């Protein structure tokens, strides 16, 4: 099914009763060249790039629940490439460039909206740090603008500029950043990958790995039977340790819960994505009008997909400090997702010590923006057996060698990243 203005017109004329399913809900075959565990954004993007860029179409994506039922549908939909450290800067810009062509590549409307991401600064030291990050971005060909107070006031006159403790001094703006509809990203990759022959298999939980006498992974045991595989890729962030454990691996990862929030719908207020620099609060406004916001992880290990009150309070305090008028808006929904918190706050995309098993993990709470880039470089790794140049630093052994990518400078304390 190819979507266009004509397909829309045809469907409209028949009362929208004849839309076809956009992807095939497949049943497992005996064997695939590549099996990807995890039918979230990253797993499906990996399958799509394997099929479209690397010509490997005998691919299955195995999903325990339904596609997009994990973090793909739980994030705050922000896309940006404003990272400062070598390893991250280039990778996230690769991902941003893929966002910019995604809808044409997939023939699917993912509502990618480059409405801008601004990080506000509240002190001279923070301004200097943001200026440095902005310069790093610009040196690497990424757009960044350091705004002064007057420019921020013009863009967002509704902020509390009289906060004596955390005065807004300005912000670092990436105009190409913005938001995308997260469910549509999942459906779009499923649509396009399925169209190239990828099998998307739902309600199929991996329960173990099949290995040959040399210890090489040759397939997976699942709730829908044994499935053979030339290579197996894991893209199960949140549950990486549990799946890796089945292969006898221990990872430099802790699972933590991150909450997100949506308010009732209000008239257009917030022009793009905005972050409060003196606490941890980020907010954008959905096309339906709800304010979508979040903050820190709860800070304790969890697989429960729900959080607790102290972080809700902290997030709302951050929002109130920045724009006190949101105290009049009611909170509509709140939920939690499970994050792979790595030991340096950066992801891992690498071969594992187990032959035939490849790892895509450790996205902390920044995985959504990386979806296309992650799929692209993981497909490269699976197809070529060598890391893509933009992901070459996301090594599993960097914690041993000391080549960490610690954007926040927190050290090996996952709940502080």
């Amino acid at each position, binding site marked *: 099914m190819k979507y266009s203005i004509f397909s829309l017109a045809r469907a409209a004329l028949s009362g929208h009763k004849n839309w076809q399913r956009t992807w095939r809900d497949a049943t497992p075959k005996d064997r695939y060249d590549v099996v990807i565990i995890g039918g979230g954004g990253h797993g499906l993007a990996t399958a799509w790039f394997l099929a479209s860029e690397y010509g490997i179409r005998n691919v299955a994506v195995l999903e325990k629940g339904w596609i997009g039922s994990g973090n793909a549908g739980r994030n705050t939909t922000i896309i940006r490439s404003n990272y400062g450290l070598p390893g991250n800067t280039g990778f996230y810009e690769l991902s941003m460039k893929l966002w910019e062509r995604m809808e044409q590549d997939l023939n699917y409307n993912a509502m990618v909206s480059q409405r801008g991401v601004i990080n506000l600064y509240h002190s001279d030291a923070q301004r200097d740090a943001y200026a440095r990050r902005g310069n790093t971005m610009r040196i690497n060909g990424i757009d960044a603008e350091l705004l002064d107070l007057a420019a921020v006031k013009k863009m967002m006159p509704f902020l509390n500029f009289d906060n004596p403790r955390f005065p807004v001094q300005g912000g670092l703006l990436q105009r190409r950043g913005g938001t995308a509809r997260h469910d549509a990203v999942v459906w779009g990759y499923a649509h396009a990958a399925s169209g190239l022959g990828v099998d998307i298999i739902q309600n199929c939980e991996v329960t173990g790995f099949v290995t040959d006498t040399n210890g090489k992974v040759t397939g997976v045991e699942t709730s829908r039977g044994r499935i053979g595989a030339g290579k197996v890729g894991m893209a199960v962030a949140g549950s990486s*340790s*549990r799946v890796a454990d089945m292969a006898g691996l*221990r990872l430099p990862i*802790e*699972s933590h819960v991150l909450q997100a929030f949506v308010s009732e719908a209000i008239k257009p207020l917030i022009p793009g994505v905005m972050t409060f620099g003196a606490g941890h609060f980020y907010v954008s406004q959905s096309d339906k009008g709800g304010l979508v916001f979040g903050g820190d992880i709860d800070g304790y*290990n*969890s697989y429960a997909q729900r959080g607790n009150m102290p972080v809700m309070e902290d997030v709302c305090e951050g929002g109130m400090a920045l724009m006190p008028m949101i105290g009049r808006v009611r909170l509509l929904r709140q939920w939690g997702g499970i994050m792979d918190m790595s030991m340096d706050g950066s992801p891992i995309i690498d071969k594992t010590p187990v032959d035939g098993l490849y790892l895509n993990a450790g996205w902390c709470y920044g995985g959504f923006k990386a979806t296309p880039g992650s799929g692209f470089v993981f497909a490269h790794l699976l197809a070529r057996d060598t890391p893509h140049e933009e992901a070459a630093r996301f090594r599993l052994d960097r914690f041993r060698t000391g080549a960490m990518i610690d954007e926040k400078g927190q050290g*090996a304390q996952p709940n502080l990243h």
Partner: protein
Amino acid sequence: MRIVCPFCGERELGEFTYLGDAKPVRPAADAGEDAVYDYVYLRDNIAGMMSENWYHGGGCRAWLKVTRNTLTHEISAVEPAAGAGAAKVGA
């Protein structure tokens, strides 16, 4: 989540700070690189019952050993950590 501190009684979560899994033990100074790497970076990341270190910074400022289910957040035991005045509550 509320934690029943053995010194202060039941208190809300915001009074406590989390350190993590109580199982890893700092290796001896001559233990070698592998042991240190394992201690600092690798985690069991248990899905289920886990013994954890929490700090009651908003109360008695004692370190506590909390047994908690990471799948449900249910807390089944709270004890003073070794050396944290354990003798005073007879633990």
